[in-house]
C-alpha cells in the first residue's frame, strides 16, 4: 500500500470521531492566533512606555489587560485542543486494538501457526502505540506547526515586509542543515541498531548460558568477543550521538543569525522612523521563535514515516481472510461419539502430501492410541478432528453427520482435549476449572477437582478454590495438568483427545495423572497420543502411523506378536541390554 493509501485508511478509523478532530483543529487555529498576537501587544505596551515622564498609563493599562486576556485564552484553547486530540486519538487506538484482537480469534489456526507469536504481540502492543504517538499526535503537531509558521509570517509582514524578507531568506539555511543532519544520521542510526541487536543477541545467549560458560572456562573468551562488539557499538554510538545532537545548536545558530539580522535592519529602519521600538521588540520575539516549528515539523515527519510502517503491519493483520464460520452458539451434544474418517486427505503445503486417503472407524467408547515417530501425522490428525485445520478431501463423520455441516462450536462441544503444555490463565482456580462451563456450581467444580485428584492440593491453599493463579503461585507441571483434566471433566465431553499429555511430567506424578486419565476415559471415546508406550498399552486399538499413513493397527499384544514396526518402537524404549 502506498503511504497516502495507508493514511486514508487510517483516517477511516478516525471517522467516528471526526467532529472531535475538527474541533481540535479549530482550537489549534485559535490558540496559534492568540499566541502570536501576544508579541504585538507586548510591542504596543513597550511603545507606550518610552522614557521618564513619557509613559501613557491609560494605554499601558489597556494593552496589558488585552495581553492578559489573550494569554489566558491561548492557554485555554491549547488545553481544549489537547483534550480533543487525546479523546480522538485514544478512542481510535482502543478501537483498533479491539479489532485486531477480535481478528486474532477469527483467523484460522493455519494462519496463526505460520505467524511468529512475537510478531502478533508486537503488532497489538507496540505498533498500535507507535501509531498513537506518531500518526495521531503528530497530525495535530504538524497542523499547529504549519499554521504557526504561516501566522508568524503574516504578523511579520504586517509589521514590516522588508525585514520579513530577510528572515525568510535565512530560513532555507535552517532546512538545509536539518536535512543534512537527518540524512547522515539515519544511515548511522541503522548501523547502530544493527550492532545493538548483535550485542543483545550475544548477551542473551551468553547470560542464559552463563553456567555453561563458567563450567567450560569460557569467561575470558566470551568477554573478548563481547568487548569486540562493545567497541564497535562505542564507535558508531559516539558518531550517532554527536551528529544527532547537532540539530539543536545548528538551528539555534540560524535563529541567532536571524535575530541579529532583524536587530540590525530593524534598528536601521527605526532610525529612519520606519518602525517603533515596540514593533522592533515584537519582531525580535517572532524572529527568535520562527525556526522552532521547523524543527518540530521535521521531527514529526520522521515519526510519521516510522508509524506508517506500523500501520502497514496492523492492516496486514486485519486483511487476513477469516475463518468461514464463526458461529459460537450451537445445540447441545447428543449422540454416542462414533467417528468415521473416509478417504481423508490433507497437506500443509500444496506440493507436500501428508495424509492421503486415510480411513478409520472408531466405535463409541473405544480407546484409540496413536503412536509413531516425530512428524508422522499424529498431531495433524488431531488438528483435523477438532477442525483446527480443514481437511483437503474426503469426509469426517461424527455419529454419521459430516462435521463440516456443524458449526465449529457444535463440533468442538463433543470433544475434550488435554495437551502437552497445560494452559493456565490468570484467574482463580475455580475460574480455571470452570473455563468450559462458566456457570458451573461450586459443587460441580469441586466434584471435577476431586475426580482429577486435585481436591486435596486445593484445600491446602489458604484461599482454596478462590486462590488467584498468577506469578506468585507456582504449580508444578503435574498439578497444572491435573487442573486441565478437571477442566475437561467438568464439561463431560463424549470424546477425549490426550496429546502427549504426560510427557513433561516426572514418573511419580505421572502415576497420579494416569489414574485421573483412566477414570476420565471410562465410557468415552478416546484418542491418546504419547511417546511413553506404557501409557497406551491399555488401549483397545493402537494405530501405528508413519508418513501420514496407518502402518499397522491392533491391540498391544496383537501388534507385538506381528513383530514389526510397533515392536521395534516398543523395544527401543524398554528392552534391557
Amino acid at each position: 500500500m502506498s503511504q497516502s493509501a495507508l493514511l486514508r485508511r487510517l483516517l477511516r478509523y478516525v471517522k467516528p470521531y471526526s467532529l472531535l478532530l475538527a474541533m481540535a483543529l479549530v482550537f489549534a487555529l485559535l490558540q496559534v492566533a492568540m499566541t502570536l498576537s501576544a508579541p504585538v501587544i507586548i510591542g504596543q505596551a513597550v511603545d507606550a512606555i518610552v522614557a521618564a515622564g513619557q509613559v501613557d498609563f491609560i494605554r499601558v493599562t489597556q494593552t496589558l489587560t488585552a495581553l492578559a486576556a489573550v494569554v489566558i485564552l491561548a492557554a485555554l484553547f491549547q488545553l481544549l485542543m489537547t483534550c480533543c486530540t487525546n479523546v480522538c486519538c485514544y478512542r481510535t487506538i482502543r478501537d483498533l486494538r479491539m479489532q485486531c484482537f477480535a481478528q486474532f480469534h477469527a483467523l484460522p489456526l493455519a494462519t496463526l501457526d505460520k505467524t511468529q507469536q512475537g510478531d502478533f504481540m508486537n503488532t497489538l502492543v507496540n505498533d498500535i502505540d507507535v501509531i498513537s504517538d506518531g500518526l495521531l499526535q503528530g497530525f495535530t503537531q504538524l497542523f499547529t506547526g504549519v499554521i504557526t509558521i504561516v501566522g508568524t509570517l503574516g504578523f511579520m509582514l504586517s509589521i514590516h515586509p522588508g525585514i520579513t524578507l530577510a528572515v525568510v531568506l535565512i530560513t532555507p539555511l535552517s532546512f538545509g542543515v536539518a536535512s543534512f543532519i537527518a540524512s547522515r544520521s539515519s544511515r548511522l542510526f541503522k548501523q547502530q541498531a544493527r550492532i545493538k541487536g548483535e550485542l543483545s543477541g550475544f548477551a542473551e545467549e551468553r547470560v542464559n548460558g552463563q553456567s555453561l560458560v563458567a563450567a567450560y572456562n569460557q569467561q575470558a573468551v566470551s568477554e573478548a568477543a563481547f568487548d569486540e562488539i562493545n567497541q564497535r557499538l562505542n564507535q558508531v554510538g559516539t558518531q550517532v550521538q554527536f551528529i544527532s545532537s547537532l540539530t539543536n545548536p545548528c538551528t539555534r545558530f540560524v535563529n541567532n543569525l536571524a535575530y541579529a539580522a532583524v536587530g540590525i535592519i530593524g534598528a536601521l529602519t527605526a532610525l529612519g522612523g520606519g518602525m517603533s521600538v515596540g514593533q522592533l521588540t515584537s519582531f525580535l520575539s517572532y524572529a527568535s521563535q520562527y525556526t522552532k516549528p521547523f524543527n518540530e515539523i521535521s521531527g514529526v515527519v520522521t515519526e510519521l514515516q516510522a508509524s506508517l510502517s506500523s500501520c502497514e503491519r496492523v492492516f496486514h493483520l486485519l486483511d487476513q481472510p477469516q475463518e468461514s464460520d464463526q458461529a459460537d452458539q450451537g445445540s447441545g451434544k447428543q449422540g454416542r461419539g462414533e467417528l468415521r474418517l473416509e478417504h481423508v486427505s490433507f497437506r500443509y503445503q500444496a506440493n507436500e502430501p501428508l495424509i492421503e486417503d486415510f480411513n478409520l472407524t472408531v466405535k463409541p467408547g473405544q480407546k484409540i492410541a496413536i503412536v509413531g515417530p516425530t512428524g508422522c501425522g499424529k498431531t495433524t490428525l488431531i488438528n483435523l478432528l477438532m477442525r483446527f485445520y480443514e481437511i483437503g478431501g474426503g469426509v469426517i463423520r461424527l455419529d454419521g453427520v459430516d462435521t463440516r455441516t456443524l458449526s465449529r462450536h457444535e463440533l468442538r462441544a463433543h470433544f475434550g482435549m488435554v495437551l502437552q503444555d497445560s494452559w493456565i490463565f490468570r484467574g482463580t482456580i475455580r475460574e480455571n476449572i470452570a473455563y468450559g462451563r462458566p456457570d458451573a456450581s461450586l459443587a460441580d467444580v469441586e466434584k471435577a477437582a476431586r475426580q482429577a485428584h486435585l481436591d486435596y492440593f486445593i484445600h491446602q491453599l489458604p484461599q482454596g478454590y478462590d486462590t488467584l493463579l498468577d506469578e506468585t503461585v507456582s504449580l508444578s507441571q503435574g498439578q497444572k495438568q491435573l487442573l486441565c483434566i478437571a477442566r475437561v471433566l467438568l464439561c463431560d465431553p463424549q470424546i477425549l483427545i490426550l496429546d502427549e499429555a504426560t510427557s513433561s511430567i516426572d514418573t511419580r506424578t505421572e502415576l497420579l495423572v494416569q489414574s485421573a486419565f483412566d477414570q476420565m476415559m471410562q465410557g468415552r471415546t478416546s484418542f491418546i497420543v504419547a511417546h511413553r508406550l506404557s501409557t497406551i498399552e491399555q488401549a483397545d486399538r493402537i494405530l501405528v502411523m508413519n508418513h501420514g499413513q496407518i502402518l499397522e493397527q491392533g491391540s498391544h499384544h496383537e501388534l507385538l506378536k506381528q513383530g514389526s514396526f510397533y515392536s521395534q518402537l516398543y523395544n527401543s524404549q524398554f528392552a534391557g541390554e
Partner: protein
Amino acid sequence: MKTIVSYFRYFKKELVFGPLFKLAEAIFELLVPLVMARIIDVGIAQKDLAYILRQGGVIVGFALVGIACSLTCQYFAARCSQGMGTELRRAVYHQINLFSAQQVSQFSSSSLITRLTNDVNQVQQAVAMLIRLAIRAPFLVLGSLTMAMVIDRTMALIFLAAIVVIALVLSVLMTCSSHFFRAVQRQLDRISQITQENLEGQRVIRAFSRQRLETHRFDEAAQASYQASMRVGWISGLFNPATQIVINLGIVALLYCGSFQVNGGALSQGNLVALVNYMTQMFLALVVLANLFVIFTKAAASAGRIEAVLKTEPAIIGGITELSKDKDAVLEMDKVSFGYSEGESAIEQISFTIQPRQTVGLIGGTGCGKSTIVQLLPRLIDPTAGEIRLGGVPLREFSLADLRRQIRIVPQKAVLFSGTIRENLRWGNQDADDAALWQALTLAQARDFVEAMPQRLDTLLVQGGKNCSGGQRQRLCIARALVGRPSLLVLDDSTSALDYQTDARLRQSLKKIEGSPAVLIVSQRIASIRHADFILVMDQGRLVGQGTHEELLDTCAVYQEIVRSQTREDQR
C-alpha cells in the same frame, strides 16, 4: 570503586571541558539581549548608525563563538556518555561471568540482560544530558535572574516570584502524572498479559469455543487502558498551558511595574525590553530543567540496578592449588547440604564416593535435587554445609579453571552457541586439533551426522543450535565435554532425546576410552542407569537408596516404584 560515579574517572577531560564550553555558549546567549538593549537605548536613541552596525556585528560574532562552543561540548558529551556506557557494559558482563549459578538465578538472567542493555542505555542518555544541559539550564535560570538584578533590583522580584510559582506548578503536575503514568503502564502490561495468554492457549480456547469470552476480557482491558491514558492526557495536557500562563502573566506584571519605573526614570525602555527577553529565556530553561529531572529520576533507578550487579560479591572464588594430572583421584561427597534460600534445602546430608573410572547412576523424580548435585560438582554453586573432596582435597582449594577442566558437565538442556561446530567443540579445549575433535565426535556417536553435513566441522550453528535436531544437539554437547578429556563426566539427563540403541552405544564407547573417565549418569530412565556400577536414588532432596540395580530392587521402595512405572509387563 564499584559505584557508577567511579566510572567517570576515565573521562575527566570530557567531564570538565564539556560543561565548560556549554557554559561559555550560555554566557554569550545571555549577553545578546543586553547588546540589543544597547542598540535600542544608544543606537536608535542617538541615531548612531555606526554603533548599531558594530553592535549587530557583535551579536553575529556571539552566534559564531556560541555554535563553536556548543559543538565542542556535544562532541565531549558524545564521547563521555558512549564511553561510559561501553565501560559499564564491559564491567557488568565481566561481573555476570563471576557469579555463581545461584546468583544468576537470584537476579534472573532476563533481568541481567536488561541491566546490561537497557539500563546502561538509560544511564548513557543521562550522562549525555548531564554534560549538555545539567550546567546550562540552571545557569540560564540563575543567569537570567542575575542579569535582571543587574538591570533593576525591584523588577528582579517578579522573576523570583515566577520561578517559585513555576516550580510549584511543575512539581505538582509531575507528581500527579508519574502516578498516572504507572497506571497506564499497568494497563498496558495487562493487555500484553492477556494477549500472551491467548497466544499460548489458542487451541484450548477454540476447543472450548471461548473466543467471545476472551475478546470480552481483552475489550475490558483495552477500555481500562483508554481511561488510564485519558487521565494522563489531562495532566500532561496541562503542562504547557499552565507554565505559559505563569510566564506570560509574569511579563504582564513586568510591563506594568516597568511602566512606573520608566516613568520615574529608574529604567530605560531598552532595558525593559531586555527584561522581557530574559523572562522568556528563563522560562525555556526551566522547562528543560523539568525534563532533566524526569530523565535523571529514570536513570537513577537504572543506575541503582546496575550498581546492585557490580556490588554483588561473586559467591564462588577459586583456590590456588593446581590439580595433579593424576586421573585416579577419588571424588567424595561428605554430608553435603544445599538450600537456595534460608531454611529451605534442595538437598540434605548427601554422602557418596565415586572411584576412578566408575560408572554411577543417579535417579529420582523432578525436583528431587539431582540437578543441584550436578551443579555442585564443578562449583557452579557451593554447599551450604558439608564438603566435597577430590583426591582428598576440598574442591574450593583448586583453581576454578583447573577444577572445571577435570569435572565436565553436560547440561540437561542441550545448549550450543552461535558459531561453527568446531568453535563449539573447542569449548572443551581451546587447543584441540581437528583429529581430537573427530575422535570426540566418534565417541559421542555424532560422527555420522557431522560427516553428512556439507561443511562438516565448519557448519554454522544458529543461536541455540536450532538447526540441529534435539538428539544431534545432545550428542554435540557430549562431544564438547569429551574434547577436554575430563576425569569425571557428568551427564545430566543429557541423552533423553536419543533412541535406545544410540544411548547404549554411547555408554559402551565411554568405557572404551583410554584412561576412561568416571561417569555420573543422571537420568529418569531406568534403562540408562541399570547397568551402572552403582545407582544413587534420590527423593525430595535425600539419598534414599544406594546400590546396584538388583540390590535396589530388593531394598528400595522408591526405586521399585520407578521401575514399575517404566518396565513392561512381562519383565515385572
